[in-house]
């Protein structure tokens, strides 16, 4: 089992949760019902109601307006940019996450804990600060601003800045999910494969990846959701140029601030659909992960 209560407050580990079928002792039926109702009420107020408002407003807006808003050039440009950013950030951070998990879980070296803290840093930095640091580095008044201007390179208020800021905020996602999973698998299987003559790559593809693939997918899924939905960091570096540097979340804000509430909610509902798809896939990945863990069910204690 994975160490679910790691001493590091920044480490929130995913674990393929096993089900406990035993009935609960010690709580009377009214207390139980009361607690369930209380939990459901707070969840609906906080989670369900906002989601319903988004989809509800789409229905009241009517189908023709939905089509009109979604086929506007600005919306389509925003959609394209959002997909482009995710298409760059997810593979890059996936590779970095895999490398980080491999280095951290297959080797012992000095400063490992420190490295893991550093990998988690982007997670506890405000998205706005994540955007700010790139403006300070590459902006017109930034440290490298004069150099970039001299060579005609624009990063801030352009697509490269948006990609960089998104890379920053999604940096830890894959590593955070993969490290606990791969650590729980130990190193013996890899060592066995290698001593039987397999190459490093073969070992990775045939031994490590099949066991860790659901953890990897889970991380990629969260990374993708954040990459497509990031607002704060992207908002700082984008410059809000319509049709050029607006991602879908920024388009939501632009429309909202122009009091085009209906249009804003329609674009928002597109992103809410993305969230629902993410949650659905996540449940599947979690389920498959549980199955895989069960099939490798030799008892591995840390």
């Amino acid at each position, binding site marked *: 089992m994975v160490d679910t209560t790691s001493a590091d407050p920044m480490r929130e580990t995913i674990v393929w949760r096993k089900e406990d079928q035993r009935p609960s002792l010690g709580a009377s039926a009214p207390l139980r019902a009361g607690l369930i109702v209380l939990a459901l009420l707070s969840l609906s107020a906080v989670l369900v109601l906002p989601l319903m408002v988004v989809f509800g407003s789409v229905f009241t807006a009517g189908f023709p307006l939905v089509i009109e808003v979604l086929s506007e050039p600005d919306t389509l440009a925003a959609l394209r940019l959002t997909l482009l950013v995710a298409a760059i950030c997810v593979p890059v951070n996936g590779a970095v996450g895999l490398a980080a998990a491999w280095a951290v879980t297959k080797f012992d070296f000095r400063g490992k804990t420190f490295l893991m803290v550093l990998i988690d840093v982007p997670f506890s930095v405000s998205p706005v600060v994540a955007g700010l640091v790139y403006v300070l580095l590459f902006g017109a008044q930034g440290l490298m601003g004069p150099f970039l201007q001299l060579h005609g390179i624009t990063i801030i208020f352009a697509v490269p800045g948006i990609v960089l800021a998104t890379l920053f905020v999604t940096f830890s996602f894959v590593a955070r999910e993969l490290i606990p999973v791969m650590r729980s698998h130990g190193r013996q299987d890899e060592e066995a494969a290698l001593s039987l003559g397999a190459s490093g790559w073969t070992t990775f593809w045939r031994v490590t990846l099949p066991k860790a693939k659901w953890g990897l997918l889970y991380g990629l899924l969260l990374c993708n959701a954040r990459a497509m939905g990031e607002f704060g960091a992207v908002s*700082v570096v984008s410059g809000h140029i319509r049709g050029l540097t607006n991602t879908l979340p920024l388009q939501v804000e632009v429309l909202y601030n122009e009091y085009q509430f209906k249009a804003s909610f329609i674009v928002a509902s597109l992103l809410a659909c993305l969230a629902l798809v993410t949650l659905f896939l996540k449940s599947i990945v979690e389920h498959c992960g549980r199955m895989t863990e069960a099939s490798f069910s030799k008892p591995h204690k840390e």
Partner: protein
Amino acid sequence: MRQSRVIPGFGLTLGLVLLMLTLIVLLPLAALALKAAGVGPRAFLVVATSPRTLAALRLSFGTAFVAALMNSGVGLLVAWVLVRYRFPGRALIDAAIDLPFALPTAVAGIALAAVYAPNGLLGHWFAAIGIKTAFNPTGITLALIFIGLPFVVRTVQPVLLEIEREAEEASALLGAGPIRTFVRVILPAILPALITGFALAFARGVGEYGSVIFIAGNIPMVSEITPLLIVIKLEEFDYGGAAVIGLVMLAISFSLLLVIHLIEATTRKAYGHG
């Protein structure tokens, strides 16, 4: 450290991680520190201690603290209900907990504003009894509760599953009521995880921007969060000021997280399940 390693790829993987970490995270953060230091100690102090900055910092850390505290209660309740009780729709609810992780913050922001604004779905009920649930610190706290809830639920849930039921059963058999059993047997076991969840929700809440600005009202000195103040400084081309506020905010966040980490480690030693 072992001399001969069987597993290859140490240099390659560690090299890649260090390279990307330096380029994407560490160098840009160093630029922040450099820029903030560049304004000089006097200007640094003027910006960092200006009433508007202090009000924004107080608001950001205060609302994040209150929201994380409330999330600890609600999150524990939800985790408990999901782990211990069976009811129709439980699997669906369990999946829905992660909605704040998956929903873009800007969408959450406009949706929460629509629900809690004075003319909103729930907001008008609260307005009728004289409670304003948007465009003030209460609205900010609500948004941060939304953002932070899954952190608490997802940290507490696995620990609740792992708890040895025998101790509870023994406690009940020895005559302790449910409340006593909860406080004396269950709470100590999950306290470290609860503190971890609190810290995660708090850390996320302090820096949160997208879901907050739509419901905050953004009135200077009253409901203007620190990240928004940074954005305003940037729009005024006051890069130095933005860097100073950003650095102060990071420094306070990291120190608080360190303190929470120490508290959590102590609790784990005292009661923990290791």
